[in-house]
């Protein structure tokens, strides 16, 4: 009688431990999205975002710095809200473009920092945007020449 109870107890504890671990894992992973609440938002207007999705990555110098928070259509243009970490300053003449991972992969946002001392304030618009294109870098060098 005791033995069966021990066994059931063990199984029960094991299952509870499993659920607790699962819960812990979920919360840990979930926290990554909650980071969004701590940053600040700016937005840009694009003529074409080529299938960019909410949650798409934002990169500067190839490093992921934030996520796309919201994409809405306004006046037949894409209004994209970017969520960026508090300390990261975006210059007024920074250029925000929609790029593709590996030429045919998923779309992401790339920001090249500018020269201006003025900074885009939270809630404000980034003026310089470039829409999604195919094979950007290649075309760019083709059009304008490589130095």
């Amino acid at each position, binding site marked *: 009688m005791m033995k069966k109870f021990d066994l059931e107890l063990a199984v029960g504890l094991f299952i509870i431990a499993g659920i607790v671990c699962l819960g812990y894992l979920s919360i840990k992973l979930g926290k990554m999205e909650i980071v969004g609440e701590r940053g600040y938002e700016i937005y840009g207007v694009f*003529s074409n975002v080529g299938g960019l999705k909410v949650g798409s990555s934002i990169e500067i110098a190839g490093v992921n710095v934030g996520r796309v928070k919201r994409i809405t259509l306004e006046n037949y243009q894409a209004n994209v809200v970017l969520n960026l970490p508090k300390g990261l300053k975006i210059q007024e003449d920074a250029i925000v473009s929609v790029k593709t991972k590996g030429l045919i992969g998923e779309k992401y946002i790339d920001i090249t920092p*500018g020269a201006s001392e003025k900074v885009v304030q939270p809630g404000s618009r980034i003026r310089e945007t470039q*829409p*999604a294109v195919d094979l950007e870098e290649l075309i*760019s060098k*083709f*059009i*304008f020449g490589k*130095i």
Partner: protein
Amino acid sequence: MIRTHLIHTIFSLFLIVAITGSVLAAEPMEAIKQTTDKLLSIVTNPALKPPSKATEKEKLIRQAVDERFDWEEMARRTLATHWAKRTPEERKEFVPLFADLLERTYLKKVEGYSGEKVLYEGETKDGDYAAVKVKIVTKKNQDIPVEYRLKREGNNWMIYDVSISGVSLVNNYRTQFNSIISQSSYENLVKRLREKVELK
């Protein structure tokens, strides 16, 4: 193939028959049209066709372009985060060098105009900034979207960026300059630009 269109493109920019006015343009689109018209008249002028007139022609083209392109603003934007570190002398040296680079890269293309059509699609203003959308139609009937970005300077509008098919000129050079400066040095960038410019 792409190269040909794009070549004709850039310079097709400067092709539209309009009324020649003064350099000062009250509206952005007017500004683009004026400069375009000026360049068109230079490039199609039979008096400037002989090879003996080549240098004069180049000078006139450069003058017309200088009136509309804000070289300092463009140079500043392309150096981006590296601009702040430059001394006033370095900046004074860089701006004309950058202008020369663009002249060297695109002059032949401007001179090679051969009848492309330019369609004005619209202009949007946002305070002291504006964008003019233009469509170039090549002889093979291909549409190339071009967008000028302008900034108001006093009573005038000056270009600080050109996008062709959604690719920004400033962004193109910004990425390359940043790459060169990061991997070697600003001095090396200047050296490379000089080499490119002097390669006549």
